[in-house]
C-alpha cells in the first residue's frame, strides 16, 4: 500500500511539496541536522545556560550593607566574603561530609556490586537489578521521611537497641564531640546516615558495570601465576574496578555537595553549602553571596570531573 503511493510520487513530473522537503533532507543532510538540533539547543541554551550565566554574573555584584540593595558594579568583594571564617567553615564541613559519604557509600556498595557481577545468575541477577533500582528510584523525600521515623526517640532504632541492651552504645556515641548531639536525628551522625542511605545506590551500578567488564581469563591467569584469591583481588580486580568506583563517586559527591534538604530535616543547626545558598537568596535577599556560594560546588565538581576523566571513569558510566 505504501509502496504504491511512493512509486507515483517518485515520478519527476509533479513533485508534492512533502517529497521536495524530503529530497532536501537527503541532498543536504546538514539542513536536517540543524533542524533537529535547533529546538533542544535553543531550549538548553536559553533556559539553562542563560540562567546559569545570569547567576554567575550576579556573583560579581555586591550588596550594599546599609540599604540592602544590590550594587551592579563588577567586584570580587562577594568572593572575598566566602573566605570569612564562618563561610569557610560551611565549605569545609560540606566537602568533608561529601568525602565521608562517598567513602562509606563505596564501602557498602562494593560487596553488593561484586556479588551481582560475579555470582548472581539468571533470576537472581534480575532480582539484584531490581533490588538496586527500586530504592534508587523511590521518592527522595519519602526516603528522608523513613529515616525520620527510624531515628526518632520513640522510633524503631532505639527500640531495637533497647531490646539488645545496647542503648549505652548510642548514648556514648552521642556524647562524642562534633559527631554527637542531643539525639541521633539532631546530630551530624544522623545527617551522615541519611546522606549515605539516599546517595549510596548511585554507586552500585557503575561499580557493577566495571566489574562485569573484567575478563575472566585475566583472573585465571592471575591464579595460574600463583596468586592467592586475596592477591588477585588486590592486584587485578580492585584496580580494574577503580574507574567504576570513581564514576559512582561523581554522583555521591556532587549530590551531597548540593543538598540542602537532608541537613535541614535531620541534623544540627550548622549550615551546609546548599542551606547557605538557600538562606542567602531567600530571606536575606543577598543574591550575590548566594551566587558566589553556588560557584563553590561548580568549581569543586569541575576539578573532580577533570580528575575522574584522567582516571578513565567516564568509560565506566
Amino acid at each position: 500500500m505504501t509502496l504504491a503511493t511512493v512509486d507515483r510520487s517518485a515520478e519527476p513530473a509533479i513533485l508534492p511539496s512533502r517529497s521536495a522537503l524530503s529530497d532536501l533532507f537527503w541532498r543536504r543532510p546538514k539542513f536536517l541536522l540543524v533542524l533537529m538540533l535547533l529546538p533542544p539547543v535553543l531550549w538548553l541554551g536559553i533556559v539553562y545556560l542563560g540562567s546559569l550565566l545570569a547567576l554567575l554574573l550576579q556573583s560579581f555584584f555586591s550588596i550594599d550593607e546599609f540599604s540592602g540593595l544590590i550594587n551592579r558594579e563588577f567586584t570580587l568583594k562577594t568572593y572575598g566574603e566566602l573566605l570569612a571564617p564562618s563561610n569557610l567553615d560551611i565549605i569545609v564541613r560540606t566537602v568533608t561530609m561529601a568525602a565521608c559519604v562517598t567513602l562509606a557509600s563505596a564501602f557498602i556498595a562494593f560487596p553488593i556490586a561484586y556479588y551481582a557481577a560475579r555470582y548472581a545468575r539468571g533470576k537472581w541477577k534480575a532480582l539484584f537489578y531490581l533490588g538496586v533500582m527500586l530504592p534508587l528510584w523511590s521518592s527522595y523525600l519519602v526516603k528522608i521521611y523513613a529515616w525520620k521515623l527510624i531515628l526518632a526517640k520513640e522510633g524503631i532504632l532505639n527500640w531495637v537497641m533497647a531490646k539488645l541492651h545496647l542503648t549505652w552504645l548510642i548514648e556514648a556515641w552521642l556524647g562524642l564531640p562534633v559527631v554527637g548531639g542531643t539525639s541521633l536525628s539532631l546530630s551530624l551522625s544522623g545527617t551522615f546516615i541519611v546522606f549515605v542511605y539516599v546517595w549510596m545506590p548511585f554507586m552500585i551500578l557503575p561499580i557493577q558495570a566495571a566489574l562485569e567488564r573484567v575478563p575472566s581469563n585475566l583472573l585465571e591467569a592471575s591464579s595460574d601465576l600463583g596468586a592467592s584469591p586475596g592477591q588477585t583481588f588486590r592486584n587485578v580486580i580492585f584496580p580494574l574496578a577503580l574507574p567504576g568506583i570513581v564514576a559512582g563517586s561523581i554522583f555521591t559527591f556532587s549530590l551531597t555537595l548540593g543538598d540542602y534538604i537532608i541537613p535541614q530535616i535531620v541534623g544540627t543547626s550548622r549550615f551546609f553549602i546548599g542551606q547557605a545558598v538557600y538562606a542567602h537568596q531567600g530571606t536575606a535577599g543577598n543574591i550575590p553571596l548566594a551566587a558566589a556560594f553556588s560557584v563553590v560546588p561548580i568549581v569543586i565538581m569541575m576539578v573532580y570531573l577533570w580528575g575522574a576523566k584522567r582516571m578513565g571513569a567516564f568509560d565506566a558510566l
Partner: protein
Amino acid sequence: MRSDRNHRAPLALKIAAGAGLLFMHVPIMLIFVYAFNVEDRTYQWPPPGLTTQWLAVTWNRPDVWQALTLSVKVASISTAIAMVLGTLCAAAVSGSRFFGRETISLLVILPIALPGIITGISLRSAFSLMEIPFSTWTIVLGHATFCIVIVYNNAVARFRRTSGSIVEASMDLGADAFQTFRYVILPNIGTALLVGGMLAFALSFDEVIVTTFTAGQQQTLPIWMLEELVRPRQLPVTNVVAMVVVTVTLLPILIAYYLTRDGDQIAGMGK
C-alpha cells in the same frame, strides 16, 4: 565470568551484600507499616495497632488532591517536552559527526551533573530578572530541562544499536524521509522512547529541589510532603501520602525494567 559459576560466593561476601540490600529496603518497607498505624501523634515503634482509616481520611483531603493534580500535570507536560527535545537531540548526535558534538552531549548532561540547587537558583534569579510571575509553566521549564537527559540517554543507546543501513535501505526502496521516520525509525526506537518517557515522568513527579525555587506559592506533592517534614502537622496523612508516592514512582520503573530487560542497556541505570 563464566568460570565462577561453580564457585560458591564466600560467606562474608554473601553477608555483606545481603546486609547492604537490607539497609536499602527496610526503611522503605517501614513506610508501608506506618501508613496503617493507629497512633497519630508520635512515631512510636512498634505501632500499637493497625487500621485503614487514614486511607479514607487522606482520600477526602482537598489539599492532597490539589497537590497531586498539579504534580501529574507538571510531570505530563515536562515529559512531553523532554521526549520531543531529547529524541531530536539524540537523533542528531548519533546520526552524524559534526563540530561541537561533544559540547552538545555535555550541554544535555549538565542539568543533572551539577547539583539541583544550582539549576533551581539560576532559574529563580532569571525569573526575577525578567519579572516572570510563578506559574505551572515556570515549574515545567525547570522540570523539562533536567528530563531531557533521561529521554536522550535512552534514545541514544537505542540509536547506537540501530544500524544506519536500514534507513538507507528504506530510502532506496523509495520511501521519503517522513515515511522512513514513520515506518522504519519510529518502530525501532519506540520502546526506548516509552521507557525514557516513563523514567522522565517518575523523575519529574518526585522532584523537589528545583521545584522549591520555581513554584512560588504553588504546591506539588513533593512540596506538600516537604512542608510536612519541616513542620509536621498531620502525621497519619503524611504516612499515607508517603506510601502512595513510593508506589506511584515505582510502577514506571518496574514497567521500564520489563520493557528493556533483554537489551544491552537496562533502563534506569543512570538517574
